């Protein structure tokens, strides 16, 4: 870890002012940034500690019936917040399926959106990696790629975005509120993360000097019918191989409106609107969800060690759709078989 300058900001404006500069980094919970730094993958020159910004530590109701999650509220506080539990249980479940209690106690909502991939090669400073060192190559394509993408990848990068929370945020169509030197703006969740394409070094569309201030949840929370099913290499404390967040509303037993987002399969939380439209007016049956799965997974392609994910994702979409019928029988965070 290199030597660096440290400043503590106590307001959004202070933070934005201090954050200007290519090698300046905001630090929130530090659960991802410090690892990257100690492993010699990133070398911040200036550290802007945003943990003193009290205004970003609240969860407030919005006039439209939605909810605003402050960027510095911790993942656990968010998951266990009564309004989140009551109105957005899908979000609670995705958060609690991630990491460990200790990590979630430090991890913040803003930081969660910006966590970096868990690709083995990205984490090894001596290895080529187009994401870390553009143009150096991608050993994952022909290497150990169990964790890697089956959708939306490019020949430059097949990494996945590892967040669980963001899978729910994608399904819920959250809005990310950011402030930068040029003022504030809102970014629709679908526009926040980006596919690797030719510039895999860019995970998202946030400006380097922009601060995330909050995440807005729209009124629709799918509290009645939702599910998050995360499949991983052990029952806790592992990133998703495939995860599915499902939410829908039923009218007279038929799906009126549905959302399905996948984690662990692409560089972004994966959503296909055509699949959601397809479900409208259909009964929540295995056949309906299997039809949606075909649309979601259209064009999926596997590599040596992850081709199983295509079939696994298909089955998980179906199972998650069926489990969403009665969320009360799911224990949060429990492995699917228990």
């Amino acid at each position, binding site marked *: *870890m*290199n030597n660096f300058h440290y400043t503590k900001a106590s307001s959004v404006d202070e933070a934005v002012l201090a954050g200007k500069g290519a090698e300046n980094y905001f630090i929130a919970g530090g659960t991802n940034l410090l690892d990257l730094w*100690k492993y*010699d993958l990133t070398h911040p020159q200036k550290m802007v500690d945003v943990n003193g910004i009290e205004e970003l530590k609240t969860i407030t109701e919005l006039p439209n019936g939605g909810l605003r999650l402050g960027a510095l509220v911790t993942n656990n506080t968010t998951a266990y917040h009564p309004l989140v539990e009551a109105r957005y249980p899908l979000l609670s479940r995705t958060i609690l399926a991630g990491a460990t209690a200790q990590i979630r106690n430090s991890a913040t909502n803003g930081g969660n959106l910006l966590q970096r991939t*868990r690709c*083995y*090669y990205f*984490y*090894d*400073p*001596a*290895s080529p990696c187009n994401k870390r060192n553009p143009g150096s190559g991608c*050993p994952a394509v*022909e*290497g*150990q790629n*169990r964790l890697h993408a089956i959708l939306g990848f490019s020949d430059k990068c097949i990494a996945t975005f590892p967040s669980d929370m963001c899978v729910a945020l994608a399904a819920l169509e959250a809005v990310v509120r950011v402030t930068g030197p040029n003022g504030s703006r809102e970014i629709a969740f679908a526009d926040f993360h980006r596919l690797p394409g030719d510039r895999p070094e860019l995970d998202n569309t946030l400006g380097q000097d922009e601060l995330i201030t909050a995440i807005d949840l729209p009124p629709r929370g799918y509290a009645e019918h939702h599910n998050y099913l995360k*499949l*991983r*290499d*052990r*029952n*806790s*404390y*592992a990133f998703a*191989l495939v995860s599915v967040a499902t939410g829908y509303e039923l009218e007279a037993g038929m799906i009126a409106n549905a959302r399905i987002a996948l984690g662990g399969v692409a560089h972004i939380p994966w959503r296909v609107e055509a699949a959601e439209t397809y479900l409208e007016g259909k009964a929540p049956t295995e056949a309906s969800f299997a039809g949606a799965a075909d649309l979601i997974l259209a064009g999926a392609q596997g590599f040596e060690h992850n081709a*199983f*994910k295509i*079939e*696994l994702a298909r*089955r*998980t979409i*179906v*199972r998650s759709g069926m489990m969403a019928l009665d969320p009360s029988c799911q224990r949060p965070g429990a*492995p*699917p*078989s*228990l």
Partner: protein
Amino acid sequence: MTKNKEIGRARRRIEGELKVTGQAKYAAEYNVPDLLHGYIVNATIVKGKIESIDEAATRAVPGVVDIIHHENRPKMAYFDMQYSDMDAPPGSPFRPLYDAEIKFHGQPIALVVAKTFEAARYAASLLKITYTEEEFDVNLKTNLDRAKKPSMGLATLIKPLPPGPRGDFDAAYATATAKFEGEFHHGAQHHNPMEMFASTTVYEGEGKLTIYDKTQGTNNSQLFIGNIFGLKMGNVRVIAPYVGGGFGSGLRPQHQLVLSVLAALCLKRNVRVSMDRSQMFTYGHRPETIQHTRFGATADGELTAVNHVAHSETSRYEDYNEVVVNHAGMLYPAQNVTLDYKLVPLDVSTPMDMRAPGGVTGMVAVENTMDQVADRLGMDPLEFRLKNYAERDHSSDKPFSSKELRECYRQGAESFGWKDRRPTGQPEKRGNRIVGRGMSSGLWDVIALPGKATAEFNAEGKLVVSSAVNDCGQGAYTVFSQIAADQLGLPLESVKFVYGDSELPLSPIQGGSYTTGVVGSAVKLACLALRNKLFKLAQILDGFPLGDALPQDVDFMDGEIIVKKDPTIRVKLTDVVAFNQGKPVKASKSNIPNVFKLKQYTRAAHAASFVEVEIDEQLGIVNVTRAVTAVAAGAIMNPKTARSQILGGMVWGISLATREESLLDKKMGKYVNDDLGEYHLPVHADIHDLEVIFVEEHDEIINALGAKGIGEIGMISMAPAIINAVYNATGKLVTALPLKVGDLL
């Protein structure tokens, strides 16, 4: 002789409180004055030569004191022999920083020494090294044609190569009614003890060192360092009372030890070198192994033909071997057996013993093949094993010193409810899940080695027992104290066990499940010798209080010698010490195995595991919901610590079958999941109902205690039982471990 009061009693670990309150210090926690910190720089290529090392940026980091590498290191020994250690396989041991040659990825090539660990680590990241790279190969599967017989050496004495063929396998296999041919594979695994390797070397002046080391053998580290740097053994003291897990990784001295000593001698300063987690993937590992089996049985279930062949990786410079294929011939009385074990040298670091080395590997192939044959016979797997129960070891034609495996089967099956097992293909359903049940036998050889202990009784009424041995947390210190207490009829509180210091009586490295048998027997013998000495001194006390009583006429109880016939006649042991001018009465004893007697028997611990799995039918997710392991391992010294050992073994068995694997990138020659986030050990949510049964077993042959050791036996039968249970539920035989999400789709 007084009755055992402590042996066999459930006692918690005597050092447990020190550990949970943070008072027990580990190698990296000795904060000696003026301490410097070394950080290891690892090679980022697999094979080739270092061309240049550019130190400029590294030296410029504030706090950096020195950079040591092959070009500027102090003198080190020349001969291979001087780099050997107590667990070294035949070959030419690796020498850290010796020359420019690179033999494996992650090889230590330089040490950056600085005033803080952080400065050293950062400065190390700035060292610019250029290499000439050579072609390398780390692919076991594509190099099987290069397989060779392991070289013979000390290691093959303890871990014997397979016996020659018996009977006519080809003929028996050809005529067998039920047969199965299988191929089994598992990748490399790394030990990953919680405590990472560290050595704190204190420079005491002119060639004298005290080293706090993470090791499974203080004498081993001492000899190693003494030999490499040409130091007098008396000038090298290695201290390692506590070890935060070893699992075999500490059986050989690790790189950080050599490097911390190198730096301390170079700089004449105190130096600590600690590895970080990813560096824990740069020395030994359980070798990747490919096995082939062919078993055949007659229509009535008699196993007649056994062929078991294993190919394991080793490095290019040492022939690491383990016992993979010998056990089928010991477990089953088949008369036509051919076994073979070969090594494939690759550009990797030498593999190392890792808990139940070879045993867990081989038993998976043997016991999964057994179930397949049983399946083809339409026989219950347990019935098939009982039908082929070996009353005698047919592979060496010797009797067992003791063998209560039948009782393990019986008690394990009963407690588990084996009779509820359904035939394969007709699983019970629980919601989305199907249930499978499987079982397996386990076997682990009992190793006999010499060991030494000293016992003394002092004026404070304490029995002080000492040995250089150390304890990875399994409870050895507690058990040794219990053994000592019983020999002199003392309460446990009156015993002090002194340990983990190379200046104490010589001990072998602690591994192979033999520490209780080896050092425990020495403790017993030393205490008995002390008892004798105390008695003799008591006889000549003023007034000859014991009269003409002989040793067998007295009891030792609560610090007194009591004449059995007339318990009013008592001599206080502290009075004996007073008579000895207040000096402690002392006796040392070595436990020298009676090789001649031992050689006439096959000596092994046995176990049987019974496992239930639940498998999500559509998603293929496997959970081990219930397991029972019944163990026959001779006398159980302390049921509490023994149970913990077996539980740990069972958890590791679950890990082996369903979780852990070091992912090797064959193009880079590197293990890529080198942290505990991606190297998947089981978490609490993976572990459910586990039960341990100890079956009574008496063994007069193996050692003075009749204890076989329980460090590894608890692990061996678990993985095959899990895979058999998965087969029972699904009809699919998983042959590549670990069984992963996706494999059952």
